[in-house]
């Protein structure tokens, strides 16, 4: 075990993992995170806390992760290369580990033009591949980048993001391979709507044996309406939403129920694909639907490989 995290255990046990996303609030109040944690507890093995997603200032991912620990759910903290240089990154990962956080997802981060701090200076001292190299060195060799010894290595289960829907398509799997070679233990993908393209991508990944080198967790995002689908299609970078999906929601009598049904079907499909080791549910601003989706997909109960999360904050 590299980190001893619940997510790592589930995946290493060969169980189909479930992760879900929690968007930290644009506020100093941790209550929304607590509420999501209580609502979703038991529905997933670990929960991603986004890091100032779309470059909008929010409660920090590490602090949100600690709130999750207090609520007895396991966090995956996301860390962008946009806002921290290598000094801050390594320091934050030591801090996160000290606070009991084990899962770290390394990402480049949405460019600041998308957010509410467009005038910001971005960092990009390292990119996500280099971030993984750095964190793996810290964990496996107890050394910071450059070689100085760490008295105590951080306990980390390292994640990378992959987007099968970005271009050039022929290169996407090789880019993932670079991330896995750099240290990614698990991979979470962009939300999948175009199953054909995802299958082609997975086939390439299997050809390179990537499904055996890292745990690939496929992303899904339930949609509440055809408007939400249109938004994803047109406004979110790096997304492909086929017209059939939009039409299905448009013509549905109860779009929300249809959205849930569609998501469950997608999960069932993904479970049947060789090399997919889990599903990552991103119910942005619709977190309360997660337990139902997980239940309908027949993924309950979650394996209790970790009896109770023991950490300094649990009251």
């Amino acid at each position, binding site marked *: 075990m590299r980190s001893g995290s619940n997510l790592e255990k589930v995946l290493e046990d060969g169980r189909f993992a479930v992760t879900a996303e929690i968007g930290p609030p644009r506020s100093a109040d941790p209550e929304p995170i607590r509420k999501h944690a209580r609502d979703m507890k038991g529905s997933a093995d670990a929960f991603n806390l986004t890091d100032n997603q779309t470059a909008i200032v929010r409660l920090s991912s590490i602090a949100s992760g600690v709130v999750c620990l207090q609520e007895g759910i396991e966090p995956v903290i996301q860390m962008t290369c946009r806002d921290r240089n290598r000094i801050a990154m390594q320091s934050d990962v030591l801090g996160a580990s000290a606070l009991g956080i084990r899962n770290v997802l390394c990402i*480049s*981060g949405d460019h600041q033009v998308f957010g509410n701090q467009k005038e910001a200076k971005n960092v990009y001292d390292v990119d996500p591949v280099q971030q993984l190299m750095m964190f793996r060195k810290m964990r496996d060799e107890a050394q910071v980048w450059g070689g100085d010894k760490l008295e105590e290595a951080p306990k980390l289960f390292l994640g990378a993001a992959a987007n099968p829907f970005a271009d*050039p398509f022929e290169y996407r799997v090789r880019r993932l*391979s*670079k991330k896995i070679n750099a240290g990614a233990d698990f991979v979470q993908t962009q939300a999948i709507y175009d199953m054909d393209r995802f299958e082609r991508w997975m086939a390439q990944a299997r050809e390179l044996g990537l499904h055996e080198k890292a745990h690939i967790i496929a992303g899904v995002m339930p949609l509440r309406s055809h408007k939400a689908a249109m938004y994803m299609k047109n406004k979110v*970078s*790096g997304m492909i939403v086929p017209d059939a999906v939009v039409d299905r929601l448009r013509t549905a009598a109860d779009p929300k129920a249809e959205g849930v049904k569609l998501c469950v079907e997608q999960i069932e499909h993904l479970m049947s694909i060789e090399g997919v080791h889990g599903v990552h549910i991103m119910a942005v601003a619709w977190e309360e639907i997660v337990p139902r989706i997980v239940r309908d997909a027949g993924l309950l109960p979650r394996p209790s490989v970790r009896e109770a999360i023991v950490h300094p904050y649990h009251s």
Partner: protein
Amino acid sequence: MIIAEQKGIEELIGILEGHKDILVVGCRSCVAICLAGGEKEVGVLSEALRLHSDMRSKGWNISEVTLERACEKEWAYELDQLVEGKDCVISLACGVGAQVIQELFPDVRVVPGLNTSNMGAPEEQGVYNEKCGGCGDCVLHLTGGICPIARCAKSLLNGPCGGSQEGKCEIDPEVPCAWDQIYHSLEKLGRLELMDVPIPPKDWGPSRSGGPRKMVRSEAILTDEQNRMKGGKR
């Protein structure tokens, strides 16, 4: 070359508050090519300022001159007589030229007339693209001759981010994705395997992050004797 554009006249008028005898200085090098600070632009700006002065009875005396290369002392010294009696120089040279002029003439205030932007190239007349970020440790041999530092919005070194779609960068559908370009350039060069070679965290020491950079070519430095023969170091 250095790419720059003129500051708005309103902003300049604000900066000039309190000045009277003003010299507009242009440069015939990069900023003339990008139509920001050559002789023409010096003429137009000077005339615009005169017009404003006359409209508002400011009594500004505006004179104009365009140097061959404002960033070289030898050329910038040509201002010697011209700055006499001036209380302000508007530099239509790039930020480098403006500083060289200020260094040479410490008694007169030099204000920037340009916003100096980047190291780039004219794509066509009137269109200029950034090409190099001056990182001090060039990687173009690994990236198909396309700079990921300056041309990728995130300065990524190991391939395109998840926002790259149909050759465009996530920041703007008008902006090409540098990594998409790199991929296709390497493909044409038959060097696609370079896309698989991981590039470790970059040493930004030789870049601006390492502090202001100084380059010394000792073999090129003139001796005191040579300087005397040349007419003396000023």
